[in-house]
């Protein structure tokens, strides 16, 4: 009898032994799930305003400092990095998944390095990576110092 040998969802998070695109795919999934969970928590958090200003203020303080005063800003910074990555990589995917900035059919030559995951696609990754660092840096500076760069 033939048995199942499905890799399952766990393989979404196994980028090892493949290329950069697979790493970015895994990160995209991970940040997507994190942002989804954050969104639910965020809606729940802000819905507490319905219970009056006293509850609201208490929730704000509790959430900011549940494990010491560094926890709130840290989580917020991580979410910010995740959001910047997810948004910018989403733009890259929108471009390349519509066949733009990809090579046209070519003649494969040994050792058969695929061109679709390299070339202009790599340039896009670098540009968006730089944008991501800038975006995240601006946000994190604001979170920690309140200064808008």
């Amino acid at each position, binding site marked *: *009898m*033939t*048995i*199942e*040998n*499905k*890799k*399952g*969802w766990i*393989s*979404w998070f196994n980028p*090892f*032994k*493949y*290329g*950069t*695109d*697979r790493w*970015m*795919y*895994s990160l*995209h999934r991970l940040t997507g799930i994190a942002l989804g969970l954050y969104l639910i928590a965020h809606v729940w958090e802000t819905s507490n305003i319905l219970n009056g200003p006293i509850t609201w203020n208490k929730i704000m303080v509790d959430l900011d400092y549940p494990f010491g005063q560094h926890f709130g800003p840290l989580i917020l910074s991580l979410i910010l990095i995740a959001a910047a990555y997810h948004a910018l990589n989403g733009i890259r*995917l929108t471009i*390349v*998944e*519509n*066949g*733009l900035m*990809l*090579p*046209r*059919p*070519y*003649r*494969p*030559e*040994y050792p*058969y*390095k*695929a*061109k*679709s*995951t390299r070339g202009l696609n790599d340039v896009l990754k670098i540009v968006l990576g730089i944008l991501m660092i800038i975006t995240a840096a601006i946000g994190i500076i604001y979170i920690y110092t309140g200064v808008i760069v």
Partner: protein
Amino acid sequence: MQEVALKGFGEVVKTVTLRIRRYDPESGEPPKYVEYKVPVQMGMTVLDGILYVKEHLDHTVSARYSCRMGICGSCGMIINGRERLACQTQILELGKDLVKIDPMGNYGTVKDLVPDLTKLFRNHESVKPYVIRDEEEPKGEYLQTPEQRESYAMFTDCIMCGLCLSACPTNATDELYLGPQALAQAFRYISDNRDLGLNERLNVLDSKHGVWRCHFSGACSDVCPKGVDPALGIQLLRQLLTSNVFVKFEQKGAPKGPDRKSVTGVS
């Protein structure tokens, strides 16, 4: 000259352990790993290693192979965590003393390293991998320039080894997903200037488990042993479908077929 090239050939360089996933359908026991010590010579491939085990250590180890030269596409397996052809992977090149060999994932396992490729062939068939024409009987040859032929030639190199489906993370959770192999072949025919079958293939491609399901993780193109770059085929197929969306596919039999020029650069 020849002596230099052959120097060291045939000598045992070191002993490597092959850790093979065994599954015996008759015993009904879950798969388990069994280790075999194999003396490795220069140039010895993983397939040679498996055959050594079969000859000298355990006759019951099963694997599928035929050509031993990367042409038939029978010997796909997961070697040290990556999809590879066993006959194209030299043991010494892996640089490890332990080589872990698993059957391809996302397919059923028939026995040991033998995957059940029914899904691969079913998906391939479903995209109608042949030139579709309007007329009942051909009246002459269908002409093609060298450039037109070159514009899809790379996708004809597919040997149907199925490694790409095993590496694909979408296939890992969506059993019905067409997969990189079938989608790249769909593009190969749709972008062929002799073909008029876009409409006939559309209901399969433009479906929940079709071309839009790809997330471009590029793993298929990373592992493809023939450089087919199926991920490129899928993205270009999407471009072809979206750029033709205003050109009403219902004009069936329109002699020119879809606008290929914007996608392949050749009309």
